[in-house]
């Protein structure tokens, strides 16, 4: 995965997803470049989660194409997308609750070469020292914040080129949000990977390289962050202002 692409490494075009008669996403165009943090912002029910799940392959799509590197992947099953370098960290159910922290990370490196595995787990402990201290603890006995760190840790351990994270800030204290976002930036800079995250937290403006505004299943804007008027974003698309 070393070669650089001029084109976006992840590209979605004309994506439509329906749940029964309800249209969750209408003809969405979306892309992410190599080594950037892309924010998807929007109110509840805008379709943020659906967009991430459609990219990862866990929801059925009605129409549209998804390109990842030079593959067209919209018909691929979850496992094949994961093997090609995509990883979704869902908003809920994002840890293995009855396993230790260490084992949670050990099953997440399963697709990596044996030689790399230990390094990946150690990198997670370096980013989140508290997880290293609590490596023997059963995951569902961790605090909410620590569980969120573990969820992100699982994503990092998976060593995917593109990590899709669904609202990592939800339920976290403001201080922890700042710290988590700083860690995401460090991951982008350390690993040269791409992080796509859906958010309702205004602090996303501090770390995202680009933002997509999503409302009622449609893209409202797609801008580099320097072109965005902070107040517009805040008023229209972000619920919790912390």
């Amino acid at each position: 995965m070393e070669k650089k692409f001029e084109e976006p490494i992840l590209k979605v075009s004309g994506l439509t997803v329906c749940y029964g008669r309800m249209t969750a996403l209408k003809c969405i165009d979306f892309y992410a470049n190599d080594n950037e943090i892309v924010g998807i912002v929007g109110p509840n029910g805008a379709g943020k989660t659906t967009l991430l799940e459609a990219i990862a392959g866990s929801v059925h799509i009605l129409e549209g194409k998804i390109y990842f590197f030079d593959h067209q992947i919209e018909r691929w099953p979850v496992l094949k997308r994961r093997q090609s370098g995509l990883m979704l960290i869902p908003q809920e159910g994002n840890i293995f609750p009855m396993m230790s922290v260490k084992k949670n990370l050990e099953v997440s490196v399963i697709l990596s070469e044996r030689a790399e595995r230990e390094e990946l787990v150690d990198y997670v402990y370096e980013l989140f020292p508290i997880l290293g201290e609590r490596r023997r603890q059963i995951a569902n006995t961790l605090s909410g914040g620590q569980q969120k760190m573990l969820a992100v840790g699982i994503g990092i351990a998976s060593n995917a080129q593109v990590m899709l994270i669904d609202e990592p800030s939800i339920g976290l204290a403001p201080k922890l949000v700042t710290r988590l976002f700083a860690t995401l930036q460090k991951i982008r800079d350390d690993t040269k990977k791409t992080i796509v995250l859906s958010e309702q937290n205004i602090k996303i403006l501090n770390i995202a390289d680009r933002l997509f505004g999503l409302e009622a299943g449609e893209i409202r804007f797609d801008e580099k962050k320097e072109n965005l008027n902070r107040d517009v974003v805040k008023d229209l698309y972000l619920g919790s202002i912390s």
Partner: protein
Amino acid sequence: MLLNGIITGLIMGGILSLPVLGVAVIYGITGIPNFAIGVIGVFGGFITWYFLSYSIGLAIVIGVVVCFIVGYIVQRILLTPISEKGGDATLFFIITVSVGFVFEGFIRAIFPRPNISLELPRLGTINLATFTVEGFKIIALVFALGTLVIIRLLEEHTEIGKSWQATSQNLKLSKLVGIKTTQVFSIASGIGCALACVGAIFWGSLYNLQLSSGWDLGFMGFIVAVVGGIGNIWGGMISALIMGMVMSFSGYLLGGEWQSVILYFIVILVLIIAPKGILGSERSL
């Protein structure tokens, strides 16, 4: 008499625990209740009986391997695809019971006799105070306990063990991190059916195997597993040993005809008090 009852109970529980472990492994990992497991195990028992005159070891291996393959294939081509489409417990009940009838039919069609007794070597006797136990029965119990320990060791130290633990705890995330969940399901089902086969072989050498034995073993396995906390292998083991004791003591004290009355009365009582079983279940039926 007390010692006598305990030993008989432990051995019964030990044999019973094999199909129970089979159920626990399959249900714990796949979340699918497979009611055909007992019949498939007994099918393997008949295969073992058929080859017994050639070589005992070979006959057992053939029976167990056939059951593993059957369990693997049934899961792979039938149960996993249905579960991906969102099949519910009722559907799985109907489908797996139908699979059971298919294998009962196979037993009737393939084997010359519908009622067999597996003559395995008794391996001497061991004297415990006033009571004599055949070495063979001890092996049955040791095998059951050994299987439990091996399953636990696999979960702690091997990739496949960690994968099936992860799959049983969070299927969606397991797929997302890249675990081959379809394969994990198939292997779990194969192991479950292979364990049921070993249970059937022991059963067939202590009592006998007939067409209905598969349903007895399978449903009994299920009930005992539910009492222990379905999907929980420690709970299943403890429950099997307790049930073995209950059967043994009720048989001694009240006579064989009261055995099932007492047994199922206790099952109902336990489930009223603890609907998720003795040790609790992470899944619900």
